[in-house]
């Protein structure tokens, strides 16, 4: 009997409107990032899946190095590399069904390519010949864009609309650790949880937002813990363990598909290259940190599992490398061709029907271009 009850005069009660809402315990992430490779759980994974993940990782690494090389040759305006993060990129693409939707961040060109997007079309934004080089509906990949976190509410809305229509579609939205500080991250997670939308959020915590480390980004116990405040489960996974990422995402997607609502997955990984080719990471991090992560390379982790258990031989690994080289050669060749540009496209898609003001401006540009062409044909100006 408490002191209050002994007195018999006053019993504290909760405020009238208050009631417990959700038990937070089941939503909490594990203490350590989930691992599969190198554990007993790896034996439960379909060997074919492991081999497919491996081939895509090798291909993805090659894609990253080739794209970075293209920036040095002036063929790409900029490339934010996902080198070191290929396990997340590839697992995100492979875990989805055809009918599902992928909402990439600007660093996730590789995920879009692994999902089936033409590697050249996927680079349109970064090449600079247009903004989005593909019809988003074709592979159900939302436009690659540089604003941070704004794609998350899009994913929630699409998943919500699909559910309203009765379609069995899940949206997977990708974001980096820096992006979780944006307001749209908060709003998207809140809407998703309130609407119980079939959406999965994958945060690739690669340690840095350009130069700013995670400690300056958040004081949360982990990014996965943020899920609890929204009433959705948070999962923590080793982002360099492709099998673990695939498993955790797969469970979250199955949960969403079954009507269980959204999940926030934090994949702990590392950005092995600078933010982009234009960045200098020597100014804000030590080589020793990078080297420590090199020993935790996603391809090496998976290769060790496959070779250790005899699931792949040298010929199998060589085949993966050859496939990657063929992709890179094709990418190089096509990117070395100048894109065909039509300046009139600038006016063609602003509205369904151009305004009279746009028609006037279009006519002005056309006249300028015609004058330019005449100038080329007639450099001496003889016919002027």
């Amino acid at each position: 009997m408490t002191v209050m009850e002994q007195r018999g005069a006053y019993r504290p009660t909760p405020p009238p409107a208050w009631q417990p809402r959700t038990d937070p315990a089941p939503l909490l992430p594990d203490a350590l990032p989930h691992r599969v490779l190198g554990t007993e759980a790896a034996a439960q994974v379909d060997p074919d899946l492991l081999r497919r993940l491996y081939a895509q990782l090798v291909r993805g690494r090659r894609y990253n190095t080739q794209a970075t090389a293209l920036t040095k040759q002036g063929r790409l305006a900029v490339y934010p590399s996902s080198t070191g993060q290929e396990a997340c990129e590839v697992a995100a693409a492979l875990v989805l069904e055809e009918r599902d939707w992928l909402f990439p961040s600007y660093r996730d060109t590789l995920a879009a390519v692994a999902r089936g997007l033409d590697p050249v079309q996927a680079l349109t934004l970064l090449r600079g010949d247009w903004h989005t080089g593909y019809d988003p509906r074709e592979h159900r990949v939302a436009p690659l864009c540089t604003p941070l976190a704004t794609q998350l509410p899009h994913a929630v809305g699409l998943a919500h609309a699909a559910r309203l229509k009765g379609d069995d579609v899940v949206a997977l939205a990708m974001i980096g650790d820096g992006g979780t500080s944006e307001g749209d991250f908060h709003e998207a997670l809140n809407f998703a949880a309130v609407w119980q939308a079939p959406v999965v959020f994958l945060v690739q915590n690669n340690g840095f937002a350009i130069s700013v480390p995670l400690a300056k980004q958040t004081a949360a116990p982990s990014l996965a813990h943020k899920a609890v405040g929204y009433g959705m489960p948070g999962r923590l996974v080793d982002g360099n363990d492709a099998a673990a990422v695939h498993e955790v995402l797969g469970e979250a997607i199955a949960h969403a598909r079954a009507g269980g609502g959204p999940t926030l997955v934090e994949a702990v990984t590392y950005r092995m290259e600078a933010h982009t080719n234009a960045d200098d990471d020597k100014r804000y991090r030590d080589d020793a940190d990078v080297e420590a992560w090199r020993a935790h390379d996603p391809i090496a982790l998976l290769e060790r599992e496959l070779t250790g258990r005899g699931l792949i031989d040298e010929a199998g690994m060589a085949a993966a490398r050859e496939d990657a080289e063929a992709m890179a050669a094709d990418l190089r060749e096509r990117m070395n061709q100048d894109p065909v540009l039509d300046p009139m496209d600038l006016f063609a898609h602003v509205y369904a029907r151009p305004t009279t003001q746009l028609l006037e401006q279009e006519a002005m540009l056309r006249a300028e271009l015609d004058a330019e062409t005449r100038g080329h044909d007639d450099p001496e100006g003889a016919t002027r």
Partner: protein
Amino acid sequence: MTTVAVKPATMAQAFGRALRDAMAEDPTVHVMGEDVGALGGVFRVTDGLVKEFGEDRVTDTPLAEAGILGTAVGMAMYGLRPVVEMQFDAFAYPAFEQLISHVARWRNRTRGAMPLPITVRVPYGGGIGGVEHHSDSSEAYYIATPGLHVVTPATVADAYGLLRAAIASDDPVVVLEPKRLYWSKDAWNPDEPQAVEPIGRAVVRRRGRSATLITYGPSVPVCLEAAEAARAEGWDLEVVDLRSLVPFDDETVSASVRRTGRAVVVHESGSFGGPGGEIAARVTERCFHHLEAPVLRVAGFDIPYPPPMLERHHLPGVDRILDAVARLQWEARS
């Protein structure tokens, strides 16, 4: 057209009727926003919709404007036609990144592959005695954003017609609803077939020969009142109601100014960087040889929107409009 048999309806009712008819005709039309459900919106525009169409199509969202518009983008990507309500002009600002960086650009970004048929309703303008953040004229932000259509009705019939046209449009349309006119009444029969005019046509509200008042939204009734008052001064003023700021109807505006030879642009929005500067430039470029005087502007001051007890000094009124008309160099008339 007004007929004696028709009961007057308010502009708010006309907006509501437009939503209802659009939803009844097209199951992909969804209404979403803060308090649009049981409450019917703070201005009661969505009154009754949730009863008729259910919560899946008339959704009380969390209180977060970027989230509302951002999720609307995803819904439009999946084939829905969301109509988003922003509760007040200044409360729409959190949604600006979604509006400017995505909604306005999506068609262009995807080379026309994926238009976003989203309607954004924004109650705007002053004159209702609202405290700070409830009376902004935010149209300059919207019209400076390529990819958006921006319309603003001034009559009950146009409220219906323009909102229907906005919802039917495959492009994103910002519908600026003059909240001062929500309770204005007009003899308007909601049960008769209504005109859904194409977006982008201005209309001459009052014919006149002396000068043209170019205006829109909440300033239209003020200009009509000024035109009546001007008769005593011997001026016969024409009043052009733009209805659509983007696209801009150069043809109707220029034709009017060429007839009258003088023009004043009237709006609540601030003068510097406001729509009036663009309109004055366009009129001057097209009608220079017909003009008897520079195009003048009567606008809100270039100040943050005033507190309610001082707003009457800020808003363009009849006297300020007539003062501007008086400065149109009448002495130079040949």
